[in-house]
C-alpha cells in the first residue's frame, strides 16, 4: 500500500541533471556514459568507471561500496551542472535506500564474531551508517544545507518528492541532490538527481539536456529507463 501523504505543491521544481547507475551501465542526462558488457563484480565495475571519468580523489579508495556509488553518481551529475551560483547552505542532499548500510554492517560483524580473531576497525565501523555517503558528498562539493537519509522497502518517488518539495517550497534549500543509492551483496541501483527551482535554471548549463518536471511519475520513469 502506498502512503497517503500526497499533496500538490504550488511551485514548480525541475530535475536539471541526473545520473543512473545500474549493473553494466551508467546514464547521465539521457546519454549512455558507460557500458560494461561483462559485469564481473561491483569493485571492478566502479573502478573502471572511476578511471574512465578521470576523477582524482584519493579518498574514494577508502569509501565503502555505498559511498562510492553515491559519490560517483553525484560527481557525474555535478560535472555537467553548475551549483556554483548557490551558497553552501542553500544546497541540500536527501538520499534513500532499502538496506541502509547492511552490506558494510555484515563486513564489520565478521571482524568481531570470533573472540580469537577480533579486529574491529574504526575505518570500517564509520561506514555502518547510511548517511555517511551524504557526508562524503557534502565534503566533496562543500554542501552545508539540509540533509537526510530515508529508508523505504523499494524506491519511493513520492517520498523523495514530498521531502524535497517541502524543503524547496519553504526555502530551506534552493537546490538539492536527491535520489536512491542502494547497495547490498554486489547488487546495486542508483539514481541521483539535481533538483532546482524552475525559474532559476541556468540556460548555459546542462547542454543537451532538457529539464524534467520533478514529479513522482518522472522519477519512476527515470529509474526504469533503459
Amino acid at each position, binding site marked *: *500500500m*502506498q*502512503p*497517503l*501523504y*500526497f*499533496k500538490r505543491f504550488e511551485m514548480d521544481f525541475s530535475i536539471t541533471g541526473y545520473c543512473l547507475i545500474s549493473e553494466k551501465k551508467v546514464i547521465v542526462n539521457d546519454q549512455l556514459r558507460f557500458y560494461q558488457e561483462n559485469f564481473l563484480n561491483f569493485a571492478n565495475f566502479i573502478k573502471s568507471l572511476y578511471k574512465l571519468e578521470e576523477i582524482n580523489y584519493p579518498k574514494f579508495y577508502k569509501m565503502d561500496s555505498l559511498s562510492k556509488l553515491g559519490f560517483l553518481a553525484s560527481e557525474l551529475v555535478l560535472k555537467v551542472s553548475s551549483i556554483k551560483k548557490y551558497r*553552501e*547552505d542553500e544546497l541540500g*542532499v536527501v538520499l534513500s535506500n*532499502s*538496506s*541502509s548500510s*547492511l552490506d558494510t*554492517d*555484515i563486513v*564489520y*560483524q565478521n571482524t*568481531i*564474531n570470533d*573472540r580469537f580473531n*577480533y579486529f*574491529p*576497525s*574504526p575505518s570500517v*565501523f*564509520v561506514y*555502518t*551508517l*547510511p*548517511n*555517511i555517503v*551524504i*557526508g*562524503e558528498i*557534502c*565534503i566533496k*562539493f*562543500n*554542501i*552545508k*544545507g*539540509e*540533509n*537526510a*537519509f*530515508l*529508508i*523505504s*522497502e523499494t524506491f519511493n518517488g513520492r*517520498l523523495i518528492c*514530498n*521531502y524535497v518539495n*517541502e524543503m524547496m*517550497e*519553504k526555502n*530551506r534549500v534552493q537546490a538539492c541532490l536527491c535520489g536512491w543509492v542502494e547497495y547490498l551483496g554486489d547488487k546495486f541501483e542508483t539514481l541521483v538527481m539535481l533538483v532546482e527551482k524552475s525559474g532559476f535554471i541556468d540556460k548555459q548549463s546542462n547542454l543537451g539536456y532538457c529539464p524534467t518536471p520533478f514529479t513522482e511519475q518522472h522519477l519512476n520513469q527515470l529509474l526504469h529507463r533503459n
Partner: protein
Amino acid sequence: MSNVYVIADNIITSLGFSTDENINGILNDKIGIVSAAPDNTLSNTPTALSLLNFDLLDERFLQILKKINRDLPVDSFTRLEKLFILSIHDALSKVDFNYQRKRVLLIISTTKGNIDLLEDRYKAKFNHKRLFLWELGRIIRDFFGFFNTPLIISNACISGVLAISIGSRWIQSGFCDYAIVSGGDIMSEFVVSGFQSFQALSPGPCRPYDIDRNGLTLGEGCGTLILSNHEQSRERPLIRVAGSAITNDANHISGPSRTGQELSFAINSSMKEAGCLSGDINYISAHGTATPFNDEMESKAIGLSKLTDVPLNSFKGYWGHTLGAAGIVESVTAVHSLTSNTLFRSAGFKALGVSEPLTVIAKHSTSDLNTCLKTASGFGGCNAAIIFQKI
C-alpha cells in the same frame, strides 16, 4: 500557518519505563549508567553502559498483549521491536484519537535497528529480513494497525531530532494531522565494539562539558513524541514545535567541524523560522556526548550564535548516548522542562572544560521558561536544531 503541538510522549531508559519515572529519576539524581555490563556479551573489557531491564520489558510487553487480547508469543518480537511497541503504546494511551485513521503518520528513528540479529546467538531465532529497517517499521505498523507505511529515518545521532523536525514540517505542509515520532536503539556487541575501536568510550559515566571529560557512554532506550495540529494534550501549558533546521559540516565523516559554524547555521535557521532571537532562548538541551571534540565544537557553535549565557544541559550523564533515541528522549525531557519551569542539572559536570563560557546547569532549579533550543550532531557531519515553545 497552523501550529504543531506536542500532545503526548514516553521515555524508556535505564531510569524507567515512563516519562514520569525518568523525570523523577533525574530530579532524585539517579544515574542509570553502570560501570560494567553484568556479563561479557557486550564487551571484552569493562565498559560503562546504560542498560535496560529487559526482563521487566518482557513483563510489561506481556501485559500489553493481554490487554489487547493478542495471542502472540513474547519471543516472536525482537528486543528492539518490543521496546518500540512499549514506548508507542504508552504515549498513545495518554491521548484520545483514532490512530488508525488515514492522516496519521508513524515516523521511526533508529541508527542500527535490529543489528543484534547479526550475532550468532540471535541469528537462528529470527528471519534475516528483520535486519532491514523498513521491516522493523512494518512490524510496528502492523502491531498497532497504522494506516500508512511508516517513514524511517536513519541519519546517525541526529536521527531523533530530524524525525521530530520532519513530523512537524509534514503536519504544517498538510501531509498528515498526526505524527507519532518514535526513536530507539539497543546495545549490541556491534555498537559497543565500534565505539571502542574509535576509543570514544569513557571508562566511567560520561561527563559532558566537564574539564575531565574523556569520552561518551553508550545507552539503550526508546522515546516517543506525538505531534498534532489539534490541541489535544491533557497537559498544560501547550508546547509547540516552532522551528527546525539541519546542516552538514562538509568537513569530516567521523570528526566534528573545527569551527562549530555549521551547527551555528542550524541553530540560527531554526531560531529564524521560530521568529525568535538569541535573547528569547531560555534553555538549551544540547547534545553533549562528552567526547573532547564534540563538546568543544558545540561550545563554539553556541558562542557563534550568542547563546553562552543561556542555561544548558546534556542528559547523557543520566542515561548515556541512546543514539537513535537520543534526540527524542532528550526532546521529551526538554519539553517537560518547559511545562514544569524546571532546569535539570547536567549530570557529570563539575568544572567547565570547553573554550566558550557556557552556562552549564549545575543544580536543579526553577525558572520561567518559554522557549527551548534542542541540538544534536553526529557522524557524517550532520547537525540538527529544533525550537520548542510554550503557547
